[in-house]
């Protein structure tokens, strides 16, 4: 065929098809179909915020969990006797001492400053603000708790000097010339309510780190210890754990009569919010092949000849949000029952149509790959039982029979896809101090 003839042919079709003179008549049924599509989307829009809310809740959980975890670590452990840490409220230190009353704080370096070296410049008075009394050195930036080394034995009759915070009796330590040290003098009496009184003796032993041995605890000190004890009893540390799991499972539509085996691999993050209650979430890559009778396959496409059944290959990301309750715990073994909801994010979705008498191409399509796969938020109910064996404080193994039941129709074909399987996992406790 010559080029000119080709052009004529193209022109013929272009002129008549480009802009139809008699456009196709409007069909109300087409609008109804579109309206249904639009309606579906707005319905999805309502639940769209749910995963966002879930993420926010998980972040809040993490944040508060972190706070709870962090708090006990900053409190003096009774019985340890080697570290004295000021509770967070106290920004200053008071001290009674008989002779060379001093409190030395070293903010950054972890060595102990000899008492004299501080006393001298203070006594020589670099500044008169420091009266002949107690001297404390605190770090400029110290907020809560630097490490303090109080002076010697108490003496009730000792004179003390007073300096309020507003007066800011801050003097640089001229001798040590360390810019990060300041001297503060004040009275323990005036700020008794806000400050803890330490009576301690410096153990000038060769300790590294800022260490003070607490001797002869006074009432204030004792009460502080009690407080810690109470906290240790009542405070609960959330347990964080990460699990890697793999699971073979079987998938079926409506029932498991015609089921196919799928695979799952994923990562789960769990938070134990109480001794028995655990929340978990994560991402699991699932390959879910299944076969369904054509009656259960819903499509707007009109098949010239109905296939007998449809084989589907779906790959998706399963994002569960589960809660587990521990029902049994002995030695290193625990058993929990769990439930929750899963969201499916389809990654690949293709269908193969099987016709009677083998594949007869001319009678209809043989396969279909969904171009824009969808997301199904909280469309699946999870039910599971988890048996966990803790090998040590860090590592454990788990076996989890589970079942996933559809709450909504899943996939392009809108099938009720259900799944059951057994997941096998390895768990790592992220906070090792906590007991499994």
């Amino acid at each position, binding site marked *: 065929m010559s080029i000119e*003839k080709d052009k004529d042919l193209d022109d*013929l079709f272009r002129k008549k098809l480009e802009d139809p003179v008699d456009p196709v*008549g409007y069909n109300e049924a087409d*609008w109804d179909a579109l*309206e249904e599509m639009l309606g579906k989307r707005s319905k999805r829009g309502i639940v769209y915020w749910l995963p966002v809310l879930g993420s926010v809740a998980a972040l809040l959980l993490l944040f508060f969990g972190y706070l709870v975890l962090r708090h006990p670590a900053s409190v003096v452990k009774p019985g340890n006797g080697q570290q004295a840490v000021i509770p967070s409220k106290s920004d200053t230190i008071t001290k009674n001492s008989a002779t060379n009353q001093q409190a030395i704080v070293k903010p950054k370096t972890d060595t102990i400053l000899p008492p004299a070296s501080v006393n001298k410049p203070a006594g020589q008075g670099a500044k008169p603000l420091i009266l002949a009394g107690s001297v404390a050195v605190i770090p400029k930036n110290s907020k809560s708790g630097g490490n303090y080394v109080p002076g010697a034995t108490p003496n009730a009759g000792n004179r003390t000097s007073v300096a309020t915070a507003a007066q800011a009796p801050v003097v640089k330590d001229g001798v040590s010339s360390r810019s990060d040290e300041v001297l503060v003098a004040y009275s323990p009496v005036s700020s008794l309510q806000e400050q803890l009184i330490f009576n301690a003796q410096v153990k000038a032993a060769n300790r590294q780190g800022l260490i003070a041995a607490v001797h002869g605890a006074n009432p204030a000190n004792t009460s502080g210890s009690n407080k810690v004890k109470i906290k240790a009893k009542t405070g609960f540390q959330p347990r964080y754990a990460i699990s890697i799991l793999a699971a073979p499972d079987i998938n079926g539509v409506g029932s498991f009569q015609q089921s196919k085996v799928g695979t799952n691999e994923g990562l789960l993050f769990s938070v134990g919010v109480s001794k028995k209650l655990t929340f978990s979430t994560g991402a699991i890559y699932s390959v879910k092949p299944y076969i369904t009778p054509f009656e259960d396959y819903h499509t707007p*496409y009109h098949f010239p000849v109905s296939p007998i059944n449809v084989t589907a290959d779906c790959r998706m990301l399963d994002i569960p949000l589960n809660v587990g309750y521990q029902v049994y715990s002995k030695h290193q073994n625990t058993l929990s029952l769990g439930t929750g909801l899963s969201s499916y994010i389809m990654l690949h979705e293709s269908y193969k149509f099987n016709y009677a008498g083998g594949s007869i191409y001319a009678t209809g*399509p*043989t396969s279909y790959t969904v*171009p824009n796969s969808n997301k199904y938020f909280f469309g699946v109910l999870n039910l599971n039982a988890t048996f966990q064996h803790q090998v040590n404080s860090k590592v454990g193994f788990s076996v989890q029979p589970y079942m996933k039941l559809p709450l909504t129709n899943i996939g392009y074909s809108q099938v009720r896809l259900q799944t059951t399987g057994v997941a096998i996992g390895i768990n790592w406790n992220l906070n090792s101090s906590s007991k499994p």
Partner: protein
Amino acid sequence: MGEEELHQLIRGCIKQDRKCQKMLYKAFYGFSMGICLRYAGNRDEAAEVMNQGFFKVFTHIEKFDQSRPFKAWLGKIMMNASIDFYRANLKMAYTEDLDNAEHVTDGELVDKNLNYEDLIKMVQQLPQAYRTVFNLFAIEGYSHEEIGEMLNINPGTSKSNLHKARHKLKQMILNADAGRKGGNYNSGANYNTSIVAIRTIDMNGVFLNKGIRE
């Protein structure tokens, strides 16, 4: 529809106003179907693709630059929806080998009596792969390189498919013309190769029976 009225409808659609959406849908139904019918195999398929296109329109209408012509934007979306559909059904799109095809003589192709209905049916008779390339090249005016990128095929494949599409269309036109001359072709719209084939088989059967009897 006036420009102002159209922009008012578009503003309504941005607010996801269902009435405005329907009015816009009705106003551009014929235009959109005209495009989708060219790419689709039949009316139902065209309606499905068109709805996919309108779905994209309504969900992304805020991205439409109102200083530009709406019809061109809509047409492009319909074309893309058709291409998406083609890609999704790629495995269904079979190709035919023309080696065994009968030789088509160069006759007078431009039959002035062929109307829109005749021609759209001919295009719809084409295998999807040929139809899509023919539409993009002959009607939309894209080059083979552009078509190759759009359909994720080689420009060579695009050329080959265009050649085969033209060949088949030419055959159809000639057959339609012959049918009309022979009185079997009513409106030019009922061109159907399968019917011809069935008749041929029937004839053979008759001939064989006669042979046995004799």
